[in-house]
C-alpha cells in the first residue's frame, strides 16, 4: 500500500510530467568529463625520437614514429603519430615520455610527480646497518619521528627528515649514522683522486729522504692543503662539502709508495714478467726499464723480486685535523726484512 502511495506521489510531481512529455537526455551526459583520458596529444617539437612510447604501447599498431623529409634549411622532424583506430587511451606513452615538457600528453597521470623533500639540504642522512647497534638514541632524539624501525633495521624516512643533524650528534658509534652528500658522487670521486695523487707526488718528490730512510725509521711531513684547494673548489665549489670529503678520505687513507732508483738498476729484467698488470716494460732502444705509473697497482711484487734494491716500498698514513695541514707519516715496508737479514 505504501509503495502505491509513493507511485502516486511521484506521478503527481511536475518534474515527472515534464520528463514524460519530453523525454530527452540532458546534454551534459554526452560531454566528456574533465578528467577523461582522451587520445594522446602530440607536441611534435619536443620529440627526441627515443621510441619509448612505441615500446610501452600495448597495442601493436597504435604508435608509429615517423621522420619528415629533410628540407634545405633543417633536418626533418621526428615525432610519434597516433593511430586512433588502435590506440586504447591507456596513457602509458605519456607516462614513459622522457622529454620535459612532454611530447605526448594523455590524461593527467603523467603530470603527477613523485613526492620530494623540500628541505634545501646538501646532506642525506642514512643509517649504516653494518655499524648500527640499534640503541635507538637517534629515534628518540629525532624531533619529527623520521627514523623508523623497518624489518628490524633503523631507517631514515627521507620524506619526513628535516636534516637537522641531531641524530648524527647523538649517535654513539662513529659512522653508524651518516650525513652523506648524494648529489655529486662523480665529483666526489674526482676530488678524492686529486687529493691522493697530490699526496703521492709530494712523497715521491722527497727521493733523498726516502732512499736514506732506515729500516725502522719514520718520515714526517706537513703537506699543505692549500696547494690543491683552488683546484678542489673547481671540482666542487662548496667549501664545506669539499673540506669534509677531503678530511674523511684523508683520515682513512693509507697509500703505498714505490720509489724507483734507476741508478742501481742492472737491467736484469726479473721484474718485467712478474708484474701482474704488465706496467713494467723493457725499452730496448734506450736500454732501460720503464714503469707505467698509471697502470701500477702498488702490489709490491717487483719490490720483493728485485735483487738490487732498485725498488723501495713505503707505507704512508695521513691525518687532517685543522683543515690546513695534512700530517703525513711514511715508513718503509717490513715485507723484505727477513730476506735482507739473511
Amino acid at each position, binding site marked *: 500500500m505504501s509503495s502505491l502511495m509513493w507511485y502516486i506521489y511521484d506521478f503527481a510531481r511536475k518534474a515527472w510530467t515534464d520528463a514524460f512529455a519530453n523525454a530527452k537526455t540532458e546534454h551534459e551526459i554526452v560531454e566528456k568529463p574533465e578528467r577523461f583520458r582522451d587520445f594522446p596529444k602530440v607536441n611534435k617539437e619536443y620529440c627526441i625520437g627515443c621510441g619509448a612510447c612505441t615500446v610501452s604501447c600495448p*597495442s*601493436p599498431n597504435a604508435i608509429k614514429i615517423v621522420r619528415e623529409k629533410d628540407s634545405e634549411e633543417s633536418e626533418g622532424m621526428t615525432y610519434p603519430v597516433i593511430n586512433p583506430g588502435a590506440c586504447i587511451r591507456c596513457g602509458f606513452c605519456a607516462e614513459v615520455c622522457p622529454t620535459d615538457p612532454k611530447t605526448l600528453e594523455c590524461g593527467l597521470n603523467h603530470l603527477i610527480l613523485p613526492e620530494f623533500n623540500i628541505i634545501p639540504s646538501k646532506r642525506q642522512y642514512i643509517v649504516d646497518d653494518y655499524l648500527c647497534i640499534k640503541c635507538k638514541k637517534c629515534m628518540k632524539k629525532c624531533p619529527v619521528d623520521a627514523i623508523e624501525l623497518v624489518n628490524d633495521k633503523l631507517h631514515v624516512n627521507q620524506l619526513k627528515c628535516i636534516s637537522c643533524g641531531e641524530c648524527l650528534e647523538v649517535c654513539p658509534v662513529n659512522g653508524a649514522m651518516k650525513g652523506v652528500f648524494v648529489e655529486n658522487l662523480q665529483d666526489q670521486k674526482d676530488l678524492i683522486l686529486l687529493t691522493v695523487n697530490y699526496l703521492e707526488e709530494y712523497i715521491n718528490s722527497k727521493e733523498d729522504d726516502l732512499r736514506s730512510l732506515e729500516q725502522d725509521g719514520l718520515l714526517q711531513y706537513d703537506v699543505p692543503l692549500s696547494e690543491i684547494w683552488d683546484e678542489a673548489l673547481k671540482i666542487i665549489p662548496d667549501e664545506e662539502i669539499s673540506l669534509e670529503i677531503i678530511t674523511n678520505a684523508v683520515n682513512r687513507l693509507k697509500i703505498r709508495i714505490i720509489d724507483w732508483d734507476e741508478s742501481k738498476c742492472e737491467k736484469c729484467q726479473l721484474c718485467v714478467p712478474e708484474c701482474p698488470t704488465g706496467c713494467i716494460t723493457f725499452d730496448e732502444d734506450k736500454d732501460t726499464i720503464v714503469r707505467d705509473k698509471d697502470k701500477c697497482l702498488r702490489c709490491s711484487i717487483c719490490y720483493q723480486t728485485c735483487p738490487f734494491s732498485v725498488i723501495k716500498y713505503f707505507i704512508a698514513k695521513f691525518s687532517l685535523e685543522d683543515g690546513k695541514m695534512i700530517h703525513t707519516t711514511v715508513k718503509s715496508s717490513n715485507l723484505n726484512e727477513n730476506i735482507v737479514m739473511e
Partner: protein
Amino acid sequence: MLNAIKDAVRKSSIHVCIVNCGGCNGCDVECVALLSPRYDLEQYGIYVHNNPREADVLLLTGAVTEQWVDNLKRIYDKAPEPKIAVAVGNCPQSGDVFNQEGGHVHAPASDFIPVAAAIPGCPPRPSEILEAILAVGPQAIADRGREQE
C-alpha cells in the same frame, strides 16, 4: 517523393544488431549502457535487436576471429537492404591489442564486409557510439542502392 518518405521514416527508426565477432565484450557493455535510462537510446529512434534479419545497422565489435571470417559474411548477407556496418571500437579496425605477432585475428573487418563508419576507442564512450550512429546512419542508409538514380 517515395524516397523522401522512406528517408523520413528510416531516420526516425534505426534498427541495430550488435555483432560480437570475437572481442573482449568491453564495447558490447558500452552498447548496453546506451540502452540504459541514462543514455536512453530509444529516444533517438534507435532500437536494438539481436537479429540481423531486422537490422539496418550492424554494430561490429571484436577483432574478427577465425570462426567469424565466414559467419561475418553470412550475417551481413542476412540483413535486409539497405544496410550498413559500423565498426565499434578499435578491434574491427586494427585488431587492437589482439593483433600481436603470431596472433590469430583477421582484423580489419572491412576485409570481409563493407564498413561505412568506424568509431575509435577501446572502448568508445557510449555518447561517441550514439553520435556515430546518428551522424552516419540515416544518410548512409539512404545512399545505399541509389547510386544509379
